[in-house]
């Protein structure tokens, strides 16, 4: 009877934390349905009317989902909500922001990133939104203004309404219509319809339709498409980019030398515009998860409160959902929020534990997924195992049940209990998860700021503080004899970088005496800066460089490590791992000690870090030029990078045959067959995209599994 259990290498119950809500694929019948239905019930009025909804739908109060403790399924519930509203809402998963002065910028960037995800073989939500808006506006335009010498108006309106309802450009007819809709002359009419229609876009109707037209018409990552995304992200556009979108000077409203408040205000207006335009497509669902991260940082909590307030008051067509462990929220977060802000939150929606019937369903499902037959499943439940689990209490946290099931599995497999996972092993699990998901490797100013602020706190003798009064260098490490400042900028506008350099020089000249360094982190997915063509900003950049200003080009490995570190810390704060927040932070500080030391040590301008991920000694001058677009990755480069994830037909066949035959295989075995461990990340990324394969990263090893029911 023990054979089937002993022969399976991966314990089906060890994965007891939801890391990514969109991966949720199973839920126990009835468990937390009340909470889910409450959320869906609050959402439903937002998409009740026919598109376009005029006036845009006012939002309900923010919905707060509270868990009595860890492991009751907050992120799982979000996953179920996302699945339930897949065809009805643009669902946005928001990790905690770190800069209280740029909360909206962070939310906007996360929103755009989420909208750019392609799901279920459909175009990204951003492109569908663009097509839907243009199609409905086109229908309004033809129906209400008419087109000269065009007799087919009624059929055209009906067709465009259909296209607006299902905004994919599958056929030639749809693409022909998009050509017409994105013609400059038509766009002027569409902008007019938008203005007349009562959508408050702050006099930027023309810019909005132009940006949407570029998203609908241009190739993904094409020049106009990229410029439109940049405009949506509230970044300033270079003149040639603005020209591509046919934007007037006023419409290119992201200023290179904006203050954090101006950047945040513009980001908010963009978000407001996106929400208003959701009247033509799907309402938004903004989900603030991992709120434990805000604990202890009163400035962040206040900023979160303000965001919740403005979401309710100023943004239409959206539902805000917040998740929290009750103890964190009641004891540590709410007391530091302004009363008018938390008054915008509805009464809490509680989560419940699992009972015996649900537990049986969950255990059976996990066993079936691991290819156990009915006999083995029956063996699992012998000796009144389930009755004994619930004999003390009839309701348990789901994670508690999974831990007991994992223990039962080990007993049946006659496998000794593994030693407790070390924190290093848990870090490796997070690292593997980040490495196999490209979306998690993108520039994330919140992760970088968290690293510099929280992990940087350990530096001996240093005081680490936010500096709200500055434009860009919002964080500073200070010692009596030296300072290191950090700015967080993902854009590539020359004027913005000139301003950053000027501020760095000013800080070096005007601050207290002593050594000085000023850093801006860049990640590999961002366009390289400065560009060789930036003649006007070169003196400012050179001057700043001479005073200690550096652009720190992080390697992909380092980016993955930093993002994994933040996930690990977040898990610790949520109680998802056996290590607490301070303990985890202390470990991370030791883990990154040499990197921190390099950054701190480099504060004497003559000492420059020498690692590959450290700033180049003379920065931009060493950066090679790549084409007219500056150093932003081109469409071809992006395609090549995506193709780089493919293994090649022969190797793919080898992996599929091996995993299909053995059902579950150590990744080391597969890499041996492929000829080298250096292909590990490439293999994991390919596996992540393959419907029949799944990678399990455990604290001790990684396994590839053949999925029975993908």
């Amino acid at each position, binding site marked *: 009877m023990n054979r089937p259990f002993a022969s399976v290498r991966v314990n089906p119950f060890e994965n007891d934390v939801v890391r990514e809500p969109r991966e949720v694929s199973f839920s126990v019948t009835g468990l937390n349905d009340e909470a889910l239905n409450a959320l869906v019930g609050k959402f439903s009025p937002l998409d009740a009317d026919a598109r376009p909804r005029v006036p845009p739908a006012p939002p309900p109060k923010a919905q707060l989902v509270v868990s*009595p*403790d860890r492991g009751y399924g907050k992120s799982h519930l979000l996953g179920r909500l996302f699945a339930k509203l897949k065809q009805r809402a643009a669902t946005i998963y928001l990790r905690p922001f770190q800069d209280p002065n740029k909360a909206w910028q962070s939310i906007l960037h996360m929103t755009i990133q989420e909208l750019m995800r392609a799901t279920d073989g459909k175009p990204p939500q951003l492109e569908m939104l663009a097509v839907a808006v243009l199609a409905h506006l086109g229908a309004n335009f033809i129906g209400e203004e008419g087109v000269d010498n065009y007799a087919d108006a009624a059929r055209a309106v009906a067709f465009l309404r259909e296209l607006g309802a299902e905004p994919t450009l599958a056929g030639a007819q749809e693409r022909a219509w998009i050509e017409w809709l994105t013609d400059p002359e038509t766009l002027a009419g569409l902008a007019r319809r938008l203005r007349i229609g009562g959508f408050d876009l702050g006099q930027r109707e023309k810019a909005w339709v132009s940006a949407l037209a570029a998203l609908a018409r241009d190739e993904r990552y094409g020049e106009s498409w990229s410029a439109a995304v940049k405009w949506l992200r509230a970044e300033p556009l270079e003149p040639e980019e603005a020209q591509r979108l046919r934007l007037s000077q006023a419409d290119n409203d992201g200023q290179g030398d904006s203050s954090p408040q101006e950047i945040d205000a513009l980001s908010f207006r963009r978000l407001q515009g996106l929400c208003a335009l959701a009247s033509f497509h799907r309402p938004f669902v903004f989900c603030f998860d991992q709120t*434990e991260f805000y604990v202890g940082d009163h400035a962040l909590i206040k900023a979160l409160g303000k965001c919740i307030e403005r979401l309710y008051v100023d943004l239409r067509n959206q539902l805000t959902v917040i998740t929290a*462990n009750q*103890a*964190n929220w009641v004891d540590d977060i709410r007391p530091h929020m302004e009363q008018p802000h938390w008054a915008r939150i509805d009464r809490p929606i509680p989560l419940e534990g699992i009972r015996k019937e649900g537990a049986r369903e969950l255990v059976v499902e996990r066993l079936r997924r691991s290819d156990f037959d009915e006999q083995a499943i029956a063996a699992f439940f012998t000796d009144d195992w389930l009755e004994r689990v619930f004999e003390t209490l009839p309701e348990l946290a789901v994670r508690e049940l999974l831990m007991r099931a994992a223990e039962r599995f080990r007993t049946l497999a006659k496998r000794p209990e593994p030693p407790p996972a070390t924190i290093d092993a848990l870090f490796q699990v997070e690292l593997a998860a980040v490495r196999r998901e490209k979306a998690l490797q993108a520039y994330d100013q919140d992760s970088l700021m968290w690293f510099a602020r929280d992990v940087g706190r350990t530096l001996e003798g240093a005081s680490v503080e936010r500096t709200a009064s500055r434009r860009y260098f919002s964080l500073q490490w200070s010692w009596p004899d030296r300072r290191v400042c950090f700015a967080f900028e993902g854009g590539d506008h020359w004027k913005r970088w000139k301003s950053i350099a000027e501020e760095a020089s000013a800080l070096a000249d005007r601050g207290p005496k002593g050594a000085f360094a000023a850093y801006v982190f860049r990640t590999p997915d961002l366009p390289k800066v400065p560009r060789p063509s930036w003649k006007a900003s070169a003196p400012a950049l050179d001057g700043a460089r001479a005073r200690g200003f550096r652009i720190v080009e992080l390697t992909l490995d380092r980016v993955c490590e930093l993002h994994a570190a933040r996930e690990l810390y977040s898990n610790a704060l949520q109680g998802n791992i056996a290590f607490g927040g301070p303990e985890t932070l202390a470990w991370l500080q030791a883990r990154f000690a040499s990197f921190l030391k390099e950054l701190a040590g480099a504060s004497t301008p003559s000492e420059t870090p020498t690692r590959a991920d450290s700033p180049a000694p003379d920065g931009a001058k060493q950066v090679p030029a790549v084409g007219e677009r500056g150093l932003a990755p081109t469409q071809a480069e992006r395609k090549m990078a995506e193709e780089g994830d493919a293994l090649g037909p022969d190797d793919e066949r080898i992996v599929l045959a091996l995993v299909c035959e053995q059902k579950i295989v150590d990744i080391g075995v597969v890499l041996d067959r492929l000829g080298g461990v250096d292909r590990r990340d490439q293999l994991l990324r390919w596996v992540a995209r393959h419907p029949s394969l799944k990678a399990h990263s455990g604290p001790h090893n990684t396994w590839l599994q053949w999925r029975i029911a993908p």
Partner: protein
Amino acid sequence: MIAKLDTVGADIVGAGDVGLTLGQIRKKFVGKSGTKAKAREAEMRERLASLVREGAIRGPFKTGASQLYFAAGRGPSIETASDTVAEFVFQSGVKLLSKAALEKKITGLNRRFFADAIADAVAKQTIMELVQGRARFYLHRDVAAERFGFEVEGPTAPKKPALTFADLSPVYRRLKAEQGGFPAVKIFELIRALKAPKAEVHRLLIEEANTGRVTIHPTTSVELPPEVIDAGVRLPGFAEPFITVVVKDDR
């Protein structure tokens, strides 16, 4: 200045056993009559009704021309009315009080609980019901014991009746309302509010958890004071103490 309605629940909780009259609430949250007063009054009444539906407050209780609201677990109840009934019956001694006469003595907000209070006092054997024809009279147990020279149960300390779900429920509701409607209430707070021994509260919670009327939970994501941890329930087979309780279906 007109206060925001969001604090009305907290104000009623703060008023304790005295409660707040509708007039007091109106004065604070609606203000003087004016063009907007009507809308504010409607909003206030809707808010009060909603709090009553949620179980955070009780009311309105009519007393004279006033209408009173109390926090859950506060103000008049069967227990307070029962104590008053027993006191009147005791004071009356052997001059028996009829039910009708007794009812006249029970005034104010306890009046509405009169029938239940009689039943409660009789059930607790504090008073005894005597019947003549259709009339009912009441005699206090201590008066009877004295007259008949019954052996009084010595100087042993009075035994408190075992804690029940009925004791727990109103206190839980009050604590839940005080923390803004969040359902998980600390067992530490519950013990303090019930003024009952820890072991007795633990016994009740474990019993009720087994029947499914309450659930108990650890709290692992925050640092807790030692006294809060100490007040938690420890169960064999569970590494962490259970720190909070949720009464199911308490909306």
